[in-house]
Structures are given as structure tokens and as C-alpha cells.
């Protein structure tokens, strides 16, 4: 396998983008990427997207997006793994370049959630239709079940959950592309309305439109496009039981742990080697569980570590300097790529007010549904 580099990135702001359609969003992000790289062609395109079909009635996104980018003819396909679609698209693009099949591959993600679809219903299709959704559980409901299990097993509190939201908003306030650029207080989080007990509105990532893209090429050609490439050092993926009821321990994210383990092994690195990470905080509890599954904290200690500031900018392991899904926004298919872009900028020293000093190795973790799929990438400064 060849070494693969990321040489350019582009993303739309995330938010309620009434003026931009699904295809507009993709093109905006893709053009920005191509401009930064000064690349004039692509060998392949991967589009991460959870559900163009259910949100806007549009499937077959590969050729649609290639066509609208003015590149009809280029091999292009949609990759889907619910909320991990972006990470899965990156992995597919990585493998296509690493295998020697193609040189210039665009890994992108896009989602248009605000065109009037029943968002709760669409997101629930990431859960088990027959044994979960049929009975009336929602996507936040699944994470609420995880939260209650985590609280019962480890004594995690609602204040721990609030600490995640507060931290991520503080980071997101410094991110010009974030959907929410204001800070929130613990009191505001705890007073927000209940979505699924114990998760409140301000524990939950928002409904967003947006797109993000990165350009991959063999490391040997990276300097053609940028003088500061970032190498994809590892890619790890895993799945777990689809239904929460079938997991061994509802409070532990098996797929994340296994995917992380595979990535660490491929990179030959340990969790302590990671300088900065972007993790999938679809709900505040998700960030806490992921910290434990990736061994950034001990089992049961993630709430404490968050309240102590260990995962804030300036802390031991800054997590979600972009603002995370909570503050940056979560256009489902785009998130996995947006996470990679944050780490890309951190490793190039371009993260501005969010910069982690001397960041040399970063990690992204993207997951689907209630944790049935997880993709972890480890990136390093070249």
C-alpha cells in the first residue's frame, strides 16, 4: 500500500443554509478544495451522505455530484454508514489511493436536512427498524438509554454531560464555519427542554445543512499541491450490534473501541501519542463514551476528566477544538470529513484561535447510529 496524503480541504459553513440545495452544498465545498490545491481534475469522487433519498428524495449522488462539479465521466459513488458516512467515504478514498488504483481522489460529505423532511424519522432509520424504531424509540432516545446506563454504572452526572456542551461551545465560538458561535453556560444547558431524559436540547447536536471535502493523493505527489501535506497514518473501522438491546454493555461503545484499536495498531501508536482529536459528540454522552472507548480516559472517568478541563484547549488531550458536532453543527454525511479538516488545519498550524500548540499527530472518530459503526483515522504532520 502507498502512503497517502491530504493536500487540500474545503467546507461550507454549517447551519440552516436555505439558499443552498444538496447539490449546491457539495459543489461549494468541492470547488473550494480544488481551488486550494490548484487541481484541475480528479480520478475519483466519494460522497459521504446518510440519506439524500429520505431528506430530499435524491439518491444516486455519485454521478449527480460529479456532473454538477462539471466532471461527468469521473468514477463517483455515494458511501453510507449513517452518521459515519463521511469517515467511511474518507476510508474508501484512502484505500483507492493507497492501493495504487487512483492518484487524485476527493473524499467528501454532504447533507441537506432543512428542506422539510421529518428529521426525527429520517435519523431514526440509522437504528434498527424492526426492533427499535417500530416501538417508538428515537435517535436521541437511544443515546439517552446509553446515558442512563452510563450514569448507573459509573456515577456520571447531568453536570458531566453539560460540561461537554459548554466546552464544545467555547471552542466553536472560535470557529468561523460553526453553526453556533456563542458560548453556553452550565445553567443554560441544564435548563434547556428535555428531548429524551436525561438528554436536553443543549446536549444534542443540531439539525444542519453543510458539505466538506478533502483531496487525497499519494504522499510522493503531495508537494505538487501543497507545501504542508498531512499524512493519513492509519484507518480503522468496526461494526457492532445494530440494536442497543443486543450490545454486551449499553454504556460501552464496542465498535469505537475496536476501530480505535485497529487504527492505533496500524499506526504503531498509543492513545497518549495523540495531540488533538475530533470525536463524534452527536450527544454529550457520546463524547464521554468515546473518550473511554479510545482510552483517552479510564472507564467511567470521562465525566470527571471533562469537568477538570483535560479535554479542553490547553488541556491534556484537546478534544473537538472545532466545536464538535454540538457547536459546529452536524450535517450528517459531512461530519466525518469536517472532523478530518479540523485535524488537517491543526497539523498545519492553521487553526487560528483554536490552535493546539505543536500538534503533530491527530485522531478523528466518526460513528453511525447508536454506535453500530465506527471509523477512526490517525493523521500526522509530514
Amino acid at each position, binding site marked *: 500500500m502507498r502512503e497517502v496524503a491530504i493536500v487540500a480541504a474545503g467546507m461550507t459553513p454549517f447551519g440552516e443554509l436555505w439558499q443552498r440545495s444538496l447539490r449546491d452544498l457539495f459543489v461549494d465545498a468541492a470547488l473550494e478544495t480544488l481551488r486550494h490545491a490548484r487541481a484541475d481534475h480528479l480520478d475519483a469522487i466519494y460522497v459521504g451522505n446518510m440519506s439524500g433519498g429520505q431528506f430530499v428524495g435524491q439518491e444516486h449522488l455519485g454521478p449527480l455530484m460529479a456532473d454538477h462539479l462539471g466532471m461527468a465521466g469521473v468514477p463517483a459513488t455515494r458511501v453510507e454508514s449513517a452518521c459515519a458516512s463521511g469517515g467511511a467515504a474518507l476510508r474508501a478514498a484512502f484505500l483507492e489511493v493507497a492501493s495504487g488504483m487512483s492518484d487524485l481522489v476527493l473524499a467528501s460529505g454532504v447533507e441537506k436536512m432543512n428542506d422539510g423532511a*421529518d428529521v*426525527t*424519522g429520517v435519523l*431514526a432509520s440509522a437504528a434498527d427498524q*424492526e*426492533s*427499535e*424504531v*417500530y*416501538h*417508538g*424509540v*428515537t435517535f*436521541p*432516545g437511544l443515546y*439517552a*438509554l*446509553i*446515558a*442512563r*446506563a452510563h450514569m*448507573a454504572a459509573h456515577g456520571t452526572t447531568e453536570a458531566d454531560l453539560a460540561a461537554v456542551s459548554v466546552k464544545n461551545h467555547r471552542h466553536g465560538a472560535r470557529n468561523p464555519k460553526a453553526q453556533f458561535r456563542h458560548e453556553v453556560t452550565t445553567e443554560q444547558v441544564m435548563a434547556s*427542554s*428535555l*428531548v*429524551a*431524559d*436525561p*438528554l436536553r436540547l443543549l446536549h444534542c447536536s443540531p439539525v444542519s445543512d453543510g458539505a466538506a471535502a478533502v483531496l487525497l493523493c499519494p504522499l510522493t505527489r503531495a508537494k505538487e499541491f501543497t507545501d504542508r501535506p498531512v499524512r493519513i497514518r492509519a484507518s480503522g473501522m468496526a461494526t457492532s*450490534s445494530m*440494536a*442497543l*438491546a*443486543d450490545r454486551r454493555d*449499553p454504556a460501552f461503545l464496542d465498535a469505537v473501541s475496536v476501530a480505535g484499536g485497529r487504527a492505533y495498531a496500524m499506526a504503531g501508536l498509543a492513545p497518549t501519542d495523540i495531540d488533538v482529536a475530533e470525536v463524534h459528540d452527536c450527544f454529550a454522552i457520546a463524547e464521554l463514551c468515546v473518550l473511554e472507548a479510545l482510552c483517552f480516559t479510564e472507564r467511567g472517568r470521562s465525566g470527571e476528566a471533562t469537568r477538570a478541563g483535560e479535554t479542553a484547549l490547553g488541556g491534556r488531550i484537546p478534544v473537538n477544538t472545532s466545536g464538535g458536532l454540538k457547536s459546529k453543527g452536524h450535517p450528517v454525511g459531512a461530519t466525518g470529513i469536517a472532523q478530518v479538516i479540523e485535524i488537517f488545519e491543526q497539523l498545519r498550524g492553521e487553526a487560528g484561535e483554536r490552535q493546539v500548540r505543536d500538534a503533530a499527530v491527530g485522531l478523528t472518530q466518526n460513528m453511525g447510529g447508536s454506535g453500530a459503526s465506527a471509523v477512526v483515522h490517525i493523521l500526522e504532520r509530514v
Partner: protein
Amino acid sequence: MPSPRYWREIPARYRLEAGRCGGCGKVVFPTRPVCPGCRGEGLEPVTLSRRGRVVTSTVIHVAPTEFQMEAPYPMAVVETPEGARLMVQIADCEADAVQPGMEVTLEFRRLRKEGKSGILCYGHKGVPIG
């Protein structure tokens, strides 16, 4: 809810028919062709008892369209004496009274109506004992 999909699920939804793996003994609900524990095939039919214990629960406040009139409602992962776990709503219970370890019976209920003219979908909900 298209009729064939609803109809295929009747043995599981109406009668709690599950499968027991002859290889590792795991009880899988609903039954499947391949055991998720040991990849064994040919699971034996077994019917779950109509009772169980709450493993974890939540209260859904923001509900999907079909369930909006019933919100807020509790949902729980319930484990039956056979060791199968299923996700069900908890009915006839104050939302904040559902706790891990609570014993429930599984009662037949109408889970959803497909609007004014679609089919009616039935299944089970957990009801606290006593």
C-alpha cells in the same frame, strides 16, 4: 408500513417467538438465520415469557410523528427470563417511575396507526407489575 413487512414480523411481534442457538445457547429475539454469538445456523424456536426486567430506560419527549400524541413516554431495554433483550415502551406508568431492575409484564398493545387509512400495527409494551 407496507403490509408484507408488517406481516412477516407477526410471529415475533404478536407471540414473542425467538430463537435459541443450539451451539452456544444464546436466545436471540427476533430470531435470525445466523446466531450473532457463534455464527451457528438453524436456531430452535422458543417463545419468550411475557415478562422481564428493565435493564436501562429513558423517557422520549421529542417523538417521531406517529408517536407524538403519546409523548412523553418511557422506553426501556427489557430482559426476559430466557435471557433475550428487547426494546419496548413502558405503558401505564409514570414516566419517572421506571428504574433499572423494575419487573414488567409484556402486554399486547397497538403500537402505531398508519394515519387515518393505513394498517394498524400491534406488538407488546412493558407494564410494571403490582
